[in-house]
């Protein structure tokens, strides 16, 4: 038996013994996810136990070094672990921007002190992070951001406004792009800083979306003091960190498993079959086409990840995956709304699980805007892959 097989058997045994039964049923809404943080209230004892056990094992961040709360697993072992978790339908023990976004950047760009201070609380789910990137005047054109950090010797004083800060109202800390120099080109003079959301002068106001939910905030920063030890990487050179992190974000958004039940099952359940075929022939054709595209797209995710050497970034192909994955997801939700007709339109009822279909459909519209719009991704492909002039 290979080492990997041994690892699989050990992981299987451990998961069987340690994953509570309640954590093996699918989440019914996004409220079921465990996000951790200072103020997080566990939905159940099982959720708490599941997190604690995974933390102790280092498996909330399997590939991170053990000194930072990880298990030091290889990529291959991580894949095996995820397969084994999927096998028993185990829930993700911890949803976290700290793990998905900041962590990789800290590991790559952080100094020893910063890693030691910030990584273990992320791994343990003790500190919840949010991302301060976009501003009212800097969306797709992110590098034109204006939030200003004034050099006061051992610290900065930060003033400005961020927007689309995911869950800022529930986050403990923020990783934030600020302008430390505005004399050169716009990509120069951006710095990447970290600070506590409880700092004086920070105010987060939730934004109500078309889905009726408020996963994003406007974040106002007024004379916020940020110690220089919380500058990640070099001053004025935060743009390369920002881009590195965006690549991770794109891979994550592109890879979302939006729907668990196959589209054709939802459509057949809703519309019924005639002579063994979906009752609406025009919709049936579109459903088949979307499912073939989905198969090919999933293969592409696998292929691109396999092609990129372990740990390496996909480069500009992450833009291709983000673009295609989000557009496909929007298409699927449009077809699902077509298939579920009047029922899919229900907004407030137990029958509709509080309008889950309609709200999810609306949420997908943001997929091709956040993390760089589809148009920005197409620009990136034109410039970096096709090398078209002026892109």
């Amino acid at each position, binding site marked *: 038996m290979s080492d990997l097989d041994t690892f699989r058997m050990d992981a299987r045994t451990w998961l069987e013994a340690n994953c509570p039964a309640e954590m093996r049923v699918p989440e019914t809404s996004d409220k079921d996810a465990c996000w951790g943080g200072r103020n997080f209230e566990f939905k159940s004892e099982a959720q708490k136990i599941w997190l604690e056990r995974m933390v102790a094992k280092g498996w909330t961040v399997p590939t991170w070094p053990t000194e930072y709360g990880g298990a030091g697993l290889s990529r291959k072992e991580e894949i095996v672990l995820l397969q084994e978790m999927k096998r028993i339908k185990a829930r993700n023990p911890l949803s976290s921007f700290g793990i998905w976004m900041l962590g990789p950047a800290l590991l790559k760009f952080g100094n020893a002190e910063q890693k030691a201070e910030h990584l273990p609380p992320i791994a343990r789910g003790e500190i919840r992070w949010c991302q301060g990137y976009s501003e009212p005047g800097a969306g797709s054109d992110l590098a034109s951001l204006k939030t200003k950090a004034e050099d006061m010797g051992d610290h900065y004083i930060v003033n400005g406004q961020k927007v689309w800060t995911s869950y800022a109202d529930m986050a403990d800390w923020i990783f934030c792009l600020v302008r430390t120099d505005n004399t050169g080109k716009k990509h120069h003079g951006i710095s990447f800083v970290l600070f506590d959301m409880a700092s004086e002068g920070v105010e987060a106001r939730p934004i109500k979306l078309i889905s009726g939910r408020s996963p994003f905030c406007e974040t106002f920063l007024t004379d916020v003091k940020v110690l220089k030890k919380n500058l990640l990487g070099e001053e004025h050179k935060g743009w390369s960190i920002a881009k590195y992190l965006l690549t991770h974000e794109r891979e994550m958004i592109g890879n979302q498993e939006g729907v668990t039940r*196959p589209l054709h099952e939802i459509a057949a359940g809703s519309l019924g079959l005639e002579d063994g075929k979906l009752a609406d022939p025009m919709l049936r054709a579109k459903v088949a086409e979307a499912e073939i595209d989905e198969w090919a797209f999933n293969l592409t995710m696998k292929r691109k990840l*396999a092609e990129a050497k372990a740990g390496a970034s996909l480069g500009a192909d992450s833009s*291709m995956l983000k673009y295609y994955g989000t557009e496909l997801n929007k298409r699927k939700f449009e077809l699902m709304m077509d298939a579920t007709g009047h029922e899919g339109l229900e907004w407030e009822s137990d029958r509709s699980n509080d309008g889950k279909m309609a709200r999810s459909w609306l949420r997908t519209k943001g997929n091709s805007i956040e993390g760089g719009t589809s148009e920005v991704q197409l620009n990136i492909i034109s410039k970096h892959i096709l090398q*078209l*002039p002026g892109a």
Partner: protein
Amino acid sequence: MALVLNEDEVMMRDMAQGFFAEKAPVKALRDLRDTNDETGFDRGLWSEMAEMGFAGIVVPEEHGGVDMGYLAAGLVAEQMGRNLTASPFLSTAILAATALKNGSDDQKSKWLPKIASGNAVIALALDEGVKHNPRGTSTTAEPSGNGFKLNGAKAMVVDGHVADVMIVAARTSGEEGDADGISLFLVDPKSKGVATERTIMVDSRNAARIDFDDVEVSGDALLGTLDDGMTVLDAVLAAGRGIAAAELLGAGAQAFEDTVAYIKERKQFGEIIGSFQALQHRSSHMYSEVEIARSAVIGALTALDAGDEKASQYCAMAKAKLGSVAKLVSQEGVQMHGGVGMTDEYDIGLFMKRIRVLQELMGDAHYHANEFALANQY
């Protein structure tokens, strides 16, 4: 599933790339067309392809092949797609070889070595109507003496006018529309009652219409089991669709790359037209589609080599996806070339024509989307 090429596969691809670019570039197809070549492909090239191992690429070693599998065959087909290379690769090395691997020992030892050595061209005579529809086979084979008597008409028989032998699908029982009751026969085109009309297609490649009028074949002409030809046909068509998808990938990728190269050269309004966002975004979208399509081809052919139970469905899905994507890039290619895209001088039109034929062969995207839905109970 390994979706990344291994060393042997990379070597095969590179070898094929060099070979077709040198021996059979687009210019070679133009020459065949402009000289009204009677064969429709270069027999010398086919011999060289056999020497390279391409003709016997899925033929077992005991029968003189190199038996490298369908993914390797797809890498060869992809390069043929890039160069619009005319050859009996699809008809003979893929469709016929796959069919004959399911034949009797005598049939295998008679034909497989000839396929591998490039000494036989074999055509599959399956389609009859205006669209691909294997279950709709209406050509009949009735018992006659110790053998059978064939009646009916076939169309779109690729390489049919130069075939040394044909594999003919005919109904031995059941009715039009039934999957059961179809049988396969090896038929000599010189047999009495066979009338062949060469039909040159829009892509300047070979096909034929073939009529069968009381054509007598012996009992040992049966390939596979009586009434159960569909089992062999499923394997043959899975391979054919997967390889046609690979050729579509090559043709589509080349058409796309030619187009991107063109918009980097062409100037209008004093600017390189590739600097216009209207063309950039369409190009980036096509890049994405071609990458997605490539995964479909690799995934399907890998599954076929692995004997995956869903391989046949994956090959059909790949054929559907590649049909759509290659059509998109060739049509956009002509549009983005502008006026010169309409001229015979530029290659982009030739790519569009070949893609139009390939996407139709063995089922277009509509056909396969419908089959996919049926296979998934909807």
